């Protein structure tokens, strides 16, 4: 009998160890996967994969940045002078236009004459810049020069101010507006939610009557159970028009709308965790404080809040975590415009909203897909920094407090 129990205990212990190990390994694997997919971005060419840019051989320009290329194909930049070339008008040429110049019959059965035709077109137009698939590039033909392909660099990615991932021929993966947008929206959300949440937590743990508490607590916990898309819809239909009218703005979909929705969503987490921490203050400590002649209020802010310090910072971290990672509600109310945020009352685009909205269509393995994974890594690092900082703060505070 004893033996069987012993075996059983060993068995349960084994299961617990294994489940711990599996969880750790899974998390590690996810992180490794995230970074492996994301880092591939910096091996991708800045011109769309599988394509080359060709110019006329007489053109002295050897190299164009991805922003230059986009400006050329948007007809913003129109003269080669701007890029150190001759005073010649730029003629952007997309691959499909070859079919307007030559009838289909002149391409050969399986398009084997296509490179020749492309070469003719490029050689005959001095100002041309042609965007052609690699397999049809007229390489080595007279009058044709293939431009060097850059790789996407980390400074393009982290310092670029334009996020236009579907621009052809040169997609723009500047994530600065997205990173700043995410930080702005979450920071303001916490600024709104923290005083409110702490206030409610103090009220519930110290001031409310038992009956009030037994009504408030489940109600607040219920808030946490509402799906985020419901908050998003509420924000879009109620908050957005309200903000637009009150502040007299051209659009109501702003960073501020996102912050308010996020603040409402982070409140239940902050309140419950902070309230639990405060209620965990030992009875002896409260009574000692009161016995020394401290008032109720003095006890709250000199004894209970310092004692609950680590719990309160945990509440803040969980709240920020919720805010930074929240996707759906933000996607619906912030307008998702990838601009550098200048004020709270402008549309912004956040990292999670970008990933959610774009991953479905990004071709697997392409630079757009890798850029989205890289954004995931950025988000991961931001949250990691926040939790490590909070951990450090709470450790220091609890040492000081006790």
């Amino acid at each position, binding site marked *: 009998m004893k033996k069987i129990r012993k075996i059983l205990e060993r068995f349960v212990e084994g299961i617990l160890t294994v489940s711990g190990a599996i969880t750790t390994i899974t998390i590690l694997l996810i992180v490794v996967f995230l970074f492996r997919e994301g880092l591939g971005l910096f091996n991708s060419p800045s011109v769309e994969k599988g394509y080359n840019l060709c110019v006329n051989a007489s053109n002295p320009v050897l190299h164009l940045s991805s922003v230059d290329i986009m400006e050329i194909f948007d007809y913003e930049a129109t003269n080669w002078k701007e890029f150190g070339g001759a005073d010649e008008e730029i003629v952007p040429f997309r691959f499909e236009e070859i079919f307007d110049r030559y009838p289909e019959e002149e391409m050969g059965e399986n398009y084997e004459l296509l490179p020749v035709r492309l070469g003719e077109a490029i050689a005959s137009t001095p100002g041309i810049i042609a965007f052609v698939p690699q397999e049809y590039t007229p390489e080595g033909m007279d009058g044709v020069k293939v431009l060097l392909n850059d790789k996407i660099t980390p400074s393009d990615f982290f310092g670029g101010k334009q996020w236009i991932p579907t621009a052809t021929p040169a997609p723009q993966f500047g994530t600065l507006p997205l990173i700043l947008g995410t930080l702005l929206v979450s920071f303001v959300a916490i600024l709104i939610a923290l005083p409110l949440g702490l206030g409610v937590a103090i009220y519930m743990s110290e001031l409310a009557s038992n009956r009030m508490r037994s009504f408030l607590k489940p109600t607040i916990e219920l808030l946490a159970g509402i799906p985020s898309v419901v908050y998003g819809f509420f924000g879009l239909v109620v908050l957005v028009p309200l903000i637009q009218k009150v502040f007299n703005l051209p659009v109501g979909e702003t960073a501020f709308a996102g912050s308010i929705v996020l603040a409402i969503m982070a409140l239940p987490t902050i309140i419950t965790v902070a309230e639990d921490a405060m209620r965990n203050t030992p009875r002896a400590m409260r009574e000692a404080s009161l016995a020394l002649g401290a008032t109720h209020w003095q006890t709250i802010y000199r004894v209970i809040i310092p004692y609950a310090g680590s719990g309160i910072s945990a509440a803040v971290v969980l709240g920020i975590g919720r805010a930074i990672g929240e996707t759906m509600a933000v*996607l619906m109310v912030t307008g998702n415009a990838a601009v550098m945020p200048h004020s709270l009352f402008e549309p912004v685009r956040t990292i999670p909203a970008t990933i959610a909205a774009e991953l479905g269509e990004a071709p697997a393995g392409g630079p757009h897909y890798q850029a989205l994974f890289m954004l995931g890594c950025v988000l991961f690092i931001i949250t990691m920094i926040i939790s490590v900082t909070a951990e450090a703060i709470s450790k220091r505070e609890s040492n000081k407090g006790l």
Partner: protein
Amino acid sequence: MKKFIIAAALVFAGFATANAQKVKGSDTVLPLSQKEAEEYMAANPAATVTVTGGGSGVGISALMEGTTDIAQASRRIKFSERQKMQASGDKVVEKIIAYDALAIVVHPSNKVTNLTREQLEGIFTGKITNWKEVGGADLKIVPYSRETSSGTYEFFKESVLKNRNYMNGIMSMPATGAIIQSISQTPGGIGYVGLAYLNDDVKSIHVSYDGGQHYTEPSVENAKNGSYPIVRPLYYYYMAHSEKLVKPFIDYIMSTEGQQTVKEIGFIPVSE
């Protein structure tokens, strides 16, 4: 034993001819495919058609990987995608099953009724920023676009913007419903939606592609007779080797009944 083998063979044959097929891709085509599939299955109880969305690109890459039999798309297959598929030695077949018109919509209080393609291009690329520049009130223009994952986004860029990029920082909404909702509450808003989504919360713009000589209202009739310019085909793509499997379903869509459903959903039937 013999009986068992025969039974197994019958079951196997049953599976093979049960005509199970998968359709995947564009969310624009999704309601149409779903309705067609329901009616097709009602008419042919032996057949099963599973329809899923995800976006035109998702459908085409699923076709490439062989996880779907038909890819539904609201844009034409890209040259590079066609190249990749043909590299596997099989041909991809294209079939237009219906047409969809894109309507330009503004807030109901907006006085502007007519816009040319050039003006639309200016608005969506950020060159025109105030309604007074196009004959409206002194009000900032707020252009709304779909997310990059949508075939509608690509089509609008091709047809109206002539392949130029949208302005940096355009408002992008995750769904057509969200565009309608936002525009109905933003006085300076402008956006584009499928004809089927038009309602009284927004006002549709008459569009001219000939520099302002003729402005046409978006409607099924105008799209059908060719006078409304922003019309796109909706496609089904399948691999030539699975033609036998998918043909009956596609034939059904192309039949009079199938095209009647196209009209009911709010798309424009393919005129023979």
